[in-house]
């Protein structure tokens, strides 16, 4: 990943309110983005000739409740540019009580399943997603297993066993 901070600067010049901060750790650049600007920031970064992030490597959720006791979720985007060979990580904080954020499927089609997975695992709603359904857990599953308050051994109602039997 690049240590080059110009990506953040260019983004800031375009949308001054979008960039909330940034840092570099182990040579990886992280930019914190304002929740309302994620779609515009994603579009800008994918089209701007100096960043040219044509490839979305990964998108995932993180439950911050035990990390900084803030009752927030975080959506993390890992972008890569095949042409320019550099990476950047975008992070967006959203409140756990009302976890919703705009989709980036209109910028990178690959975000489709990643966002479904984040919805499945954390219950994050992606506004404007074409088909926001559970993807890995079975039909009738309750809760969002990667949230920190979800127990490791699982917590499913008795009725789910009935669903399995019925098929």
């Amino acid at each position: 990943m690049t240590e080059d901070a110009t990506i953040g600067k260019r983004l800031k010049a375009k949308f001054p309110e979008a960039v909330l901060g940034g840092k570099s750790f182990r040579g990886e650049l992280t930019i914190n983005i304002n929740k309302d600007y994620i779609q515009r920031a994603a579009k800008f970064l994918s089209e701007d000739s100096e960043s040219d992030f044509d490839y979305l490597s990964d998108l995932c959720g993180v439950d911050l409740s035990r990390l900084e006791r803030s009752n927030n979720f975080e959506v993390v985007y890992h972008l890569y540019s095949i042409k320019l060979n550099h990476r950047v990580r975008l992070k967006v904080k959203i409140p756990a009580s009302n976890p919703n954020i705009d989709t980036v499927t209109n910028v990178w089609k690959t975000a489709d399943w990643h966002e479904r997975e984040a919805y499945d695992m954390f219950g994050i709603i992606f506004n404007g997603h074409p088909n926001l359904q559970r993807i890995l857990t079975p039909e009738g599953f309750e809760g969002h297993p990667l949230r920190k308050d979800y127990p490791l051994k699982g917590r499913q109602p008795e009725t789910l066993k009935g669903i399995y039997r019925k098929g």
Partner: protein
Amino acid sequence: MTAATTEQVMTINMGPQHPSTHGVLRLLLELDGETVVKVTPDIGYLHRGIEKLAEHKTYHQFIPLTDRLDYLAPMSNNMGYALAVEKLLNIKVPKRAQYIRVIMCELTRISSHLLWLATHALDIGAMTVFFYCFRERETLNDLFEMVAGARMNLSYIRIGGVARDLPDGFTEKTRDFVNDFLGRLRDYETLLTKNKIWLMRTKGVGVISAEDAINYGLSGPCVRGSGVRWDVRKSEPYSSYDEMDFIVPVGKNGDVYDRYLVRLEELRQSNEIIRQALDNLPGGEYIADIPDVVLPKKENLKQSMESLIHHFKVVTGGICPPAGEVYACVEAPKGELGYYIVSDGTKNPYRIKIRPPSFVNLEAIEKLVVGRLLADVVAVIGSLDIVLGEIDR
């Protein structure tokens, strides 16, 4: 292909116990005659919650779980994870360990590609290839057994290096394999590359343009089949890959046939990488000497009290990397395999996200098969080379 002639659309169910879905993939196909109108993949039958389990394990304990992601390429999974943790800890791996890792990862790539070739050809009706490929895989499994003691779930790569040094006779046996393999590869090519039935079933099937392939997030041979020259081993070299001399093959048309050609050439290149790594294998240690991270050598445990205490301390206390987050990726046989690790400074990882290449590659299936015949679905699934273990995690 044929335009929709009738308005009657039939929904059929393919999988999850269908031999050509390569595992427990279920596809809901909507067909108009034999033409696919819509396809809805249904995944998650193999979901074991590996990412959740990781949050309750120490950094060392998670290594065996990575084997169970892409179970055809366990070394690549170990490798990606080890690289991510090493990046987080900011430690250097000895040169010898890096070379051993390269040899292992490339042997794994050959093994994984051989299984892909075997089953892909079998799906399309060329049965002989299957037997040949499994013959070679047998030799590879013997090699893996020599170094790791197991044939499938290897867990050989450790944080800081590898579990033990290469055993006696390993280099000779590997060299024999490498010398034989090129000839074997020519045999497969005579069976398939210019085979008329093979061409008819694969040429122009499942076409995706370079632009779409990038937008859909395809990686590995799937994106290279469309002509995108991108390989993590070249663009962001890890573990001394920059010292190896190899080329990255690309296709032109982005169809099933081009992806087949790309993988065949990759087999050849991997073979060459192994040869180079064996020739230039440096001496020295096979694991870094960092006492608070790396387990002491097994042979010392029975003689040295201090080693035993040390072992106990690392196993029970785990390793506590600094708080922070890293993303490390490797070129697994299927594509870009990434690990995103968030650490809060304790012995358990706070969050591990695995970026499995198959998961993302499968996503593009709708783009590849809609408008094609039902029989092409089988060819396309084969050419994507998916493994459900890493899709469902």
